[in-house]
């Protein structure tokens, strides 16, 4: 198929098959997204981050990230240490590169907890309504009323500091909006004709919830997650800064900023560089999420 032919097939207003319709819809969304320069910049930043995290051992020496060398401590940028060294003589470049892995792990784990929990609470609440809805939404409201960082602090105090506990604490305060979103999406669809058709065909409630309604909730949930990523990264870094996230010698960006605090006035790069990494990452996720939302809104309108 020629290029123009392929394009016509993708944009065909009257698709001949479900497959063509589905691929065409994705193509239109991708076109809309690609036309948005800022969103593309966000996507590139996120992709670059993922690549850096995967290829970290190729980009920087894995040993340099944790290898202490007191004779080389607090050196400014040089060819050997592009970002200088920290107070224990570790290479800041290598630590920043490997820090991407920790950050992405935290974000991914929080997402893996938050999405199923939010859907698990929001879907039944929206579908069954009544008492189920009242109980589940009260529960959601209670957790929604919690200050995120402070609750995470209290949990870290009880469970002890560490990356897993930080993830649990962040997830606990992140899921409620997902439950609300899933509930709202379910309520707009539970009386739709395709659901009634499924009921008439004898589909069970579980099957309707998981096979008919769930797939339609996923796009908005995923967009919400992308928009939340930056907030999750910043909260995780904040916990790391307070010493409640990943424990030393792990190269966590927030903890790296904290360690540079002591030498801020004379060796500014120790605290500044990991902070820039956090900043760029969260700008990337924000732009990417905004772009995704715009595409979805345009389709909805």
């Amino acid at each position, binding site marked *: 198929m020629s290029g123009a032919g392929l394009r016509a097939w993708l944009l065909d207003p009257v698709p001949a098959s479900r497959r063509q319709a589905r691929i065409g819809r994705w193509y239109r969304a991708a076109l809309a997204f690609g036309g948005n320069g800022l969103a593309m910049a966000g996507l590139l930043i996120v992709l670059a981050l993922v690549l850096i995290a995967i290829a970290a051992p190729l980009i920087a020496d894995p040993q340099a990230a944790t290898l202490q060398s007191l004779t080389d401590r607090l050196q400014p940028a040089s060819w050997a240490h592009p970002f200088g060294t920290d107070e224990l003589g570790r290479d800041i470049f290598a630590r920043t590169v490997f820090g991407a892995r920790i950050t992405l792990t935290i974000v991914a784990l929080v997402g893996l907890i938050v999405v199923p929990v939010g859907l698990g609470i929001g879907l039944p609440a929206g579908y069954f309504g009544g008492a189920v809805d009242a109980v589940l939404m009260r529960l959601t409201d209670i957790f929604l009323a919690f200050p995120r960082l402070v609750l995470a602090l209290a949990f870290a105090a009880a469970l002890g500091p560490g990356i897993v506990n930080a993830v649990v604490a962040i997830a606990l305060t992140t899921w409620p909006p997902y439950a609300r979103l899933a509930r709202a999406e379910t309520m707009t669809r539970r009386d739709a004709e395709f659901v009634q058709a499924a009921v008439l065909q004898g589909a069970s409630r579980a099957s309707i919830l998981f096979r008919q309604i769930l797939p339609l909730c996923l796009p908005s949930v995923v967009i919400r997650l992308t928009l939340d990523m930056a907030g999750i990264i910043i909260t995780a870094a904040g916990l790391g800064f307070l010493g409640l996230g990943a424990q030393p010698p792990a190269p966590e960006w927030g903890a790296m900023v904290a360690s540079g605090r002591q030498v801020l006035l004379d060796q500014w790069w120790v605290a500044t560089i990991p902070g820039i990494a956090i900043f760029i990452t969260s*700008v990337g996720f924000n732009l990417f999420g905004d772009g995704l939302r715009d595409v979805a809104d345009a389709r909805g309108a």
Partner: protein
Amino acid sequence: MSAVRRVLRTLFSVVLTFLGLTMVTFFIGRVIPIDPVLAIVGPKASVETYARVRAEIGLDLPLPVQYWRYLTRVLHGDFGTSVITSQPVLQDMLNVFPATLELALLALFIGVALGVPLGVVSATQRGRWPDHLIRLVSLFGYSMPVFWLGLVGLLLFYAKLGWVAGPGRIDVGYEDLVPTVTGLLTVDALLDGNRDVFINAVQHLVLPASILGYLSLAYIARMTRSFMLGQLRQEYILAALAKGLRPARVVWVHALGNAWVQLITVIALTFGSLLEGAVLTETVFSWPGLGLYMKNSLFNADLNAVLGGTMLVGFVYILLNLVSDLLYPLVDPRARSRA
């Protein structure tokens, strides 16, 4: 639904949320790996002593009974005693909270006073360079880790330029010069008429408050923009313009007037997140408020103080939600008549 029923409903959900909050803090207090009995009796105590002390502090009772006792104590303002200061946690918190409040109030003022107009301009200039610029400023604001911005601010404005004073709330030489009335140092200095203390306190306050203010500005400007865009699409705007009203009046009085209804909730939420951001900001600026108190308690395993602080911040959150719920019908006459 009548207005009375609406208020009752709101109060019911407030009470429920408060109970949820205490359940979570109670649960956290129970799961902590430290054995409170062992901490009292020591590792060499006999089994009998252990059991006696355990019964004395009520740990042998069923969980619901323990929770009930905990709740009663909390409602009486008894959050236990801090291990570090050996004072009641409530007393400690009352001592440090004004410092946090001073910081958060000024930050909120900066955020609203600048964020709302920026959001309005951004919406009316949609797609042109002022809009792009404001959105960029706002994007940077909510992408920036506050603790890092604080450090960079200190490095630049305190160490390099010398425009502001360093960490802390006041220079050592000015400490305890003015009597504590409100606990807000700048206000107390004004009440006392002490110009030097006031100036010094402002020099310490301005940087942390501006940094927290920038973060709330970012959020408020973004939300104002989206609310204003929603309003400007409405037909009443077109009607007002067609009637020959000045466009500026239509934007700033008619459209913004309606956007305020939604903005109230946003501002309440922002204030809540400022209290939270204070934990990090206060750590960076050694600001002696609730955030620093909680952080220090955390590292000294002072669980009573940490949970007390959690409860206080959670409680303020709940109150803010309540206030914005109750204010809603006052600002929006439609909500009143519908109610």
